[in-house]
């Protein structure tokens, strides 16, 4: 039971990181990025290639992931940043799908559907199995905490204010002297490089990576985390990721209860529940569990009344 809890928390940490990254792009800046898994997968494979094929230490892998993810994010941005809402979603979805096909096809690089085996783990040598699991969890939680602190600070800063204003109306910030395209690019790249970082962590945790790990269904889970938790609010993103992971993992417990169903059916049922929940939340509580706070931040409140 204990080991299972550690596993769930480790997965939750990855989703927290992904949700925080998507929040930077969508929650703050209004960029509908449905290509989450494209960057996630790029990070996983880049890190794997760096450590396995090129024999570098894991930190280099994580770094490589972020650089590749950031660069890919920049390219996708430059191509599509002028597109609005739903069309940006479709194009980024296309990016993710193209990546998946590339992962499958370019198997000289990625070992394709056979799976890329990754031996390097983010642990110190010589720890026992339980200790290893806890150590990995610790590393993941540390990364998640760092991402949270950095992104939360950005969200509450004047930089975040500009991002939010772009989300609301891209003309007003422009007429006030803000380079809207540059801000969108930065927000997107911040998000995409962190998504790739999450991919790197994931790869070194599960140790076998196949293109089928990076499907749209994963993207749906990340989006769901944000919608349920509260887009625009970093704490909301964290909460949403925890809730969604709980629901997703929790529904695994359905399996023994419903022995008359095949594994395919149980898996299908889980996604039916997730999809329905997403629609229900969008309909009845679109701002999520922790809505974005509108009041001016404490740093700006000066002691003497104006």
């Amino acid at each position: 039971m204990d080991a299972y809890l550690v596993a769930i928390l480790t997965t939750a940490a990855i989703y927290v990181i992904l949700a925080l990254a998507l929040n930077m792009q969508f929650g703050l800046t209004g960029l509908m990025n449905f290509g989450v898994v494209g960057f996630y997968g790029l990070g996983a494979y880049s890190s794997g290639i760096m450590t396995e094929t090129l024999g570098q230490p894991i930190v280099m892998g994580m770094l490589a992931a972020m650089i590749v993810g950031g660069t890919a994010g920049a390219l996708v941005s430059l191509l599509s940043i002028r597109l609005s809402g739903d069309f940006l979603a479709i194009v980024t979805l296309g990016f993710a799908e193209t990546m998946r096909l590339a992962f499958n096809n370019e198997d000289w690089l990625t070992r394709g559907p056979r799976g890329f085996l990754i031996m390097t783990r983010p642990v110190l040598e010589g720890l026992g199995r339980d200790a290893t699991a806890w150590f990995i969890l610790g590393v993941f939680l540390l990364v998640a905490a760092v991402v949270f602190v950095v992104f939360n600070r950005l969200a509450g800063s004047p930089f975040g204010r500009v991002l939010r204003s772009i989300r609301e109306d891209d003309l007003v910030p422009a007429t006030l002297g803000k380079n809207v395209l540059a801000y969108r690019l930065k927000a997107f790249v911040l998000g995409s490089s962190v998504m790739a970082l999450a991919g790197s962590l994931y790869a070194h945790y599960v140790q076998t990576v196949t293109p089928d790990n990076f499907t749209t269904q994963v993207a749906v889970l990340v989006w769901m985390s944000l919608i349920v938790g509260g887009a625009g609010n970093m704490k909301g993103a964290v909460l949403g990721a925890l809730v969604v992971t709980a629901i997703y993992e929790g529904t695994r417990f359905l399996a023994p209860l419903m022995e008359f169903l095949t594994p395919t059916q149980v898996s299908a049922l889980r996604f039916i529940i997730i999809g329905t929940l997403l629609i229900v939340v969008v309909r009845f509580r679109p701002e999520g569990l922790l809505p974005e706070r509108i009041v001016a931040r404490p740093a700006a409140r000066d002691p003497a009344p104006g």
Partner: protein
Amino acid sequence: MQLILNAIASAAVLAPAAIGFTLIFTLFRYTNFAAGALMTAGAFAAWQMNDLGLPIWLGGICAVAFASGLLMLSDRVVFEPLRGRSGGTLLLVSIALSVIIDNVIRFAYGTQIRAFDLPLRPPLTYAGLRFTPETLSVIGISVVATLAVGALLAFTRLGRALRAVADNPSLSSIRGLPVPRIEAAGILLAGALFGLSGTLAGLDLAIEPNLSWALTIPVIAAAIVGGLGSPLGAALGAVIIGLAEELTVAFISAPYKGAVGFVVIALVLLLRPQGLLGRAVERK
């Protein structure tokens, strides 16, 4: 030449759904990502009827009716309460719906590939081209359906009413048009087209839950290339997408066929957002 024939066959499968997609877009101003799932639902409905002993053409009619009803149900339950929201929200919800429908199908039928109960006939050859009799039927049915829908939209009162409501719902309402009923008619028509495309896909390709994924993007691409808001454009767009896919298979590499639709969408949106025949339609 074989390439062109294959392209037209693909286009024939896509065209009705592309028209349906563009109808939904012009009426309600959002991209309905569940198009592919509805097509797959139609394909399975047709297959189920066929499996129970009905001939394929009857199964096809059932598919059309089923998909039509399913889209109507989806609209009432999911999309209508969210009418005022942004296009992005509606897209997100349509993706969720797509996941639900796909997984219901997977729940009911598993993941194995099925096919219609057809006598195995060898491919025909004519003027150096190879094709199956099914391909001919698919192309034929699609052409007839496309022309019929085109005629409906261009020449009948319903068609004019649909175009009026799509252009300006409030004005149409003031002028006395029964907007909700016209919208409902549009939904039923779009659903029917999805069902038809699904059946054609079942004839031409295979019937399995993954179908929706493979079909959604080409359908959306066809509608966007042709110009959102133009049914004729959607049909033309289908041909272009069919060609693009076949060219990719021929000159780049077959597995990337699925990416072509996206590339085309990106190019069109960047270079000529109104597509070939569309007007610049305002989106939410």
